[in-house]
């Protein structure tokens, strides 16, 4: 969907926002992430799918510099995840449905707080706050506590706050749970806009139809990436009508590797 799509051979290292090679993490005898290799290009909307317990969260914790890999390598925005965790944190944004905003602070205070955490100057914080409020149409509630505004507004605000320090990559962890279908689409338009300006978006979701909004997706099963490509490619290869069907086929624990982790 974006004009900057290139074939794999054309994509150069400089265009890669994320590069993981045989990335692995074990906890005792349990292998949570098992030699995953993938690349995400700059400006791409990449859907990171998998059943609960498939290893997505562990993989994301490694990519965000919060957890050391047991094996393999990864670079995020050009920084090594083992040695340059602090540099990674400056270049990424993170939004999760649950923990992104402080409910008792006002809309404006939340933005200012994040600006302070990321060391923006007073002028930068003022300018970006004003621009963000105008773009989201939230000027009329800037002095209201976050708990008093609708969930859909909170989600848009949380995404914008995660982008306040102009990161190269933003990680979105189930960003759209619980909102109405129109609000959910407005949120996806914000994601498209973000990608359009060159920021890479990595998103996890339980809505399989949302997977189809992504440029490319990967599906993790029991610690490994079992499918990766554009939604259209993957559906065509598997001969299915929806990503939901493909997901269930790959991830249903029916005697395969996933069976070992059923109930885990």
């Amino acid at each position, binding site marked *: *969907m*974006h*004009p900057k799509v290139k074939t794999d051979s054309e994509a150069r290292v400089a265009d890669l926002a994320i590069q993981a090679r045989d990335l692995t993490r074990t906890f005792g005898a349990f292998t949570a992430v098992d030699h995953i290799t993938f690349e995400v290009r700059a400006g791409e909307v990449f859907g990171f799918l*998998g*059943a*609960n*317990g498939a290893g997505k969260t562990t993989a994301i914790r490694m990519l965000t510099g919060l957890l050391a890999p047991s094996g393999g390598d990864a670079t995020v925005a050009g920084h090594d995840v083992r040695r340059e965790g602090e540099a990674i944190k400056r270049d990424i944004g993170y939004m999760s449905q649950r923990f992104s905003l402080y409910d008792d602070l006002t809309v404006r205070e939340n933005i200012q707080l994040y600006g302070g955490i990321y060391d923006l100057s007073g002028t930068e914080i003022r300018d970006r706050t004003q621009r963000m409020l105008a773009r989201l*149409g939230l000027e*009329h509630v800037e002095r209201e506590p976050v708990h008093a*505004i*609708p*969930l*859909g*507004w909170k989600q848009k605000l949380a995404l914008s706050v995660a982008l306040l320090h102009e990161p190269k990559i933003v990680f979105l962890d*189930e960003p759209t*749970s*619980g*909102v*109405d*279908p*129109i*609000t959910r*689409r*407005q949120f*996806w*338009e914000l994601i*498209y*806009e973000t990608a*359009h300006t060159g920021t890479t978006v990595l998103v996890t979701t*339980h*809505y*399989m*139809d949302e997977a*189809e*909004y992504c440029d490319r997706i990967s599906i993790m099963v029991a610690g490994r990436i079992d499918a990766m490509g554009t*939604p*259209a490619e993957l559906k065509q290869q598997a001969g299915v009508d*929806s990503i*939901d069907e493909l*997901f*269930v086929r790959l*991830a*249903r*624990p029916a005697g395969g590797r996933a069976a070992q982790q*059923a*109930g*885990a």
Partner: protein
Amino acid sequence: MSESTAVVAQGLTKRFDTTVALDNVSFSIAPGELFGFIGPDGAGKTTLFRILATLLIPDAGQARVLGSDVVKDLWTLRSQIGYMPGRFSLYPDLSVEENLRFFASVFGTTIEREYKQIAPIYSQLEPFKTRRAAALSGGMKQKLALCCALVHRPRLLLLDEPTTGVDAVSRREFWDLLGTFKTSGLTIVVSTPYMDEANRCDRVALVQRGHILAVDTPRAITASFDRPLFAVRSSNRYDSLHALREYANTKSVYPFGEALHFADARDDVAPEQIAREASAFLGEHGIADANVTRTDPTIEDTFIARMGAPEGEDRQRGARG
């Protein structure tokens, strides 16, 4: 009073401070039906389920469940219904088996006595019966909660968002289980924010901000979509969307999976012509490879068409919220 209806609600209204959680809601559910309330957070689903489960008293209106009034006959009713709240409400420090044993004992029965009733689900949990509930996966937690809601052999199940936050595979397994229990004649009332789950229900109510937008079979609801719907595919979805927003004949356009869904505002134009003209319009606006084809509306398309403004937008326009 007769049991030709399992649930009947008339004018149910409930306010919390200035928020109207349920606004004059009426519906009825037949015995043995699998009935779904489909809608986003804030639609009033949880408030409605708490009223039906005798845990909350409505400000106005009445509801009868299995012939009993939810306010006056609560003690009769409580042993006849199985309620699974939206938030995980089992004891995290007890094992799978201990949780189930506890809920059985509260209703004066035992796992052994009820084994046949719960077997389709308990057989899946038994391999993990000594595991603490806190250590179960999301999908298994929900299965245990369903098992606990079933152990006293209720005649009606109230399941409030049993599949929220659970992955697509576990969601599907959970609905398969509900299908199994439905065949035994149990009435099942379930709520969900996932529009695609509507198709698993006999009938659904689409709910939004305390109101019921529609009640019918999923097939009748999608059939009520009042105009041809088109899927627009192109290599540039973002620009196509913005172009069609400016198109004079657009009734609605929004992203839908890998395509856009587009409806034309004119009632007197043949579908083929609508497709041709929309495609030509996109061509004039720099999208040469647009492919416009007729598509079947889904529950979600119908919901979008009926819901009006999303939450808060009336406030944004300056009207009172």
